[in-house]
């Protein structure tokens, strides 16, 4: 697992108990109500998407739902913005544009 890139601010306490999901096949955990981007960045994953043409790495950018750079695909739901979409237990999350090999 990569180095964490974000941590909770001191004094912020998510509800106890984990939510499990996978990202690109790898198991990940988060908290109830936590966004997908938050859980992934805490786990050290800043690369949330690859572009269709150049397969370039992209991640959390505008943080307010405008840019769609953090888009991910959730099996059974479709493409969502990981910065506002919270984790569903047992969900399989993957790159939004269907491209995992560089």
């Amino acid at each position, binding site marked *: 697992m990569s180095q964490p890139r974000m941590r909770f601010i001191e004094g912020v306490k998510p509800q106890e108990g984990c939510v499990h999901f996978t990202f690109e096949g790898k198991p990940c955990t988060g908290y109830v109500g936590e966004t997908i981007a938050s859980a992934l960045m805490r786990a050290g994953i800043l690369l949330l998407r690859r572009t269709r043409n150049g397969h370039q790495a992209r991640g959390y950018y505008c943080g307010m739902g*405008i840019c769609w750079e953090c888009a991910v695909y959730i099996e059974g739901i479709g493409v969502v913005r990981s910065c506002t979409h919270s984790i569903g237990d047992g969900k399989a999350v993957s790159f939004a544009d269907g491209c995992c090999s560089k």
Partner: protein
Amino acid sequence: MSDPVVIIGAGAAGLACAAELASASQETVLIDDNPVAGGQYFRQLPPSYHTTSDVRLLRDKARFDGLMAKLRVPSVRHLPSTVVWGAPDSKTVAYAGIHGSGRIRASAIVLASGAQEKSLPFTGWTLPGVISAGGCLNLAKAHGLVPLGRVVIVGNGPLVLVAAGTMIAAGADVTAVIEAQPDIKLASVALNGLFAAPGILATAAKHRARILRSGLRLKTGWMICEARGDETLREIAIAPIGMDGRPVLKKKRWMQADILVVGYGLLPGSETARMFGCSMEMNPQLNGFVPLRDAHLETSVRDIYAIGDGAGIGGVEIALLEGRIAALSILGAPVPPSLARRYRSLDRYRRKLNIAYRMSNSLIAATEETIVCRCEEITLGRLSFDPNSERENLNALKTSSRLGMGRCQGRNCLSVASSLLGFDLQDGATYPRARPPLRPVRLCELAADADAGPAREPDEINLSKSRETQ
């Protein structure tokens, strides 16, 4: 009035408007793209999170809770995670989201869609680890997160100081703050006077002191020129700003960074107003392309009002006052003189401030290989060589190059592309139209639209008029 008032956007302006309408028991529908109300300024943690009393989040929770309490009445219906994607006519909104999709006929429509960030493309700005200033504030406010590793903050304007202050308070290792404005005093004035709420004014006023005290590098008159890294950000280059608004590359300096926060100002998010066919103007005092409004904040289209940052950048205090003024106008009630006075004075102040903050030359960090349109991966070089660039026709350039055709629908790139290519967009004549669907909508949501009917585009009327006069 039997039809409800529809408010688009549940940020400071939309909430204040809804609260005022609620106190008169006016039927109101509040539609918002976010899962939780509050917009950007009042952004809150997920409801399942708890905080200790000493948590340093700077999120003005007390005022937000006060506004929300007023909305817990049967006359107000809040539709979160819902977008307004169409305007079948000037009295109807088409919406889609987690609570379903459909159309609402409104007695009045209030546009409160807020601001968006002004992009400043530079090579490497697409790397994971480069985040916008608003995105940085939301890391703390909406996610309760603080980055690990070295954080560098670059930009121009009050947002830079707010971002730096927030990150330092949250416990981040902020190693440098790079402000484009040569005079840091101006930046401090702006922060204290306008963008901070009275409740946290004391905290906000401490931002600058906190930055200075923390011993990090604070550079004024410098800007970002490049970012590098293998898949994620590793280092950035900064340089002093030359007379032409470009970085002086001879004096370029590299520094290590794990997270780069970029904030070169805000623009009004005006696409909803344009979709409804409101007459627009380019107004530097309001920081961009905004709907024309009368004293009641009504646009050129009858019963459509525009309030908050989406109608002109001004920050939370102006947004709250405009929300109340628009609500009173809709209710046909007089605006209390004290409210009108306070609004006039803040409005004058923000207009001066927006002018004062303008750089004499717009900043340019992009080179030929820099990606301008992030979604479609289009470089400045490719845009410059497009024949439609010579014609200074942004709409034609969009069609020929796919500029602005990705998921963000041009919000990130259209405005900055036109300025990088030197287009004069004063009248907005070649600005691409804001057409439905205004936001990305899933087909299943559209298919579930029980009231589906013809999707006429209201601004067609204006277009056909302007064609006739040509």
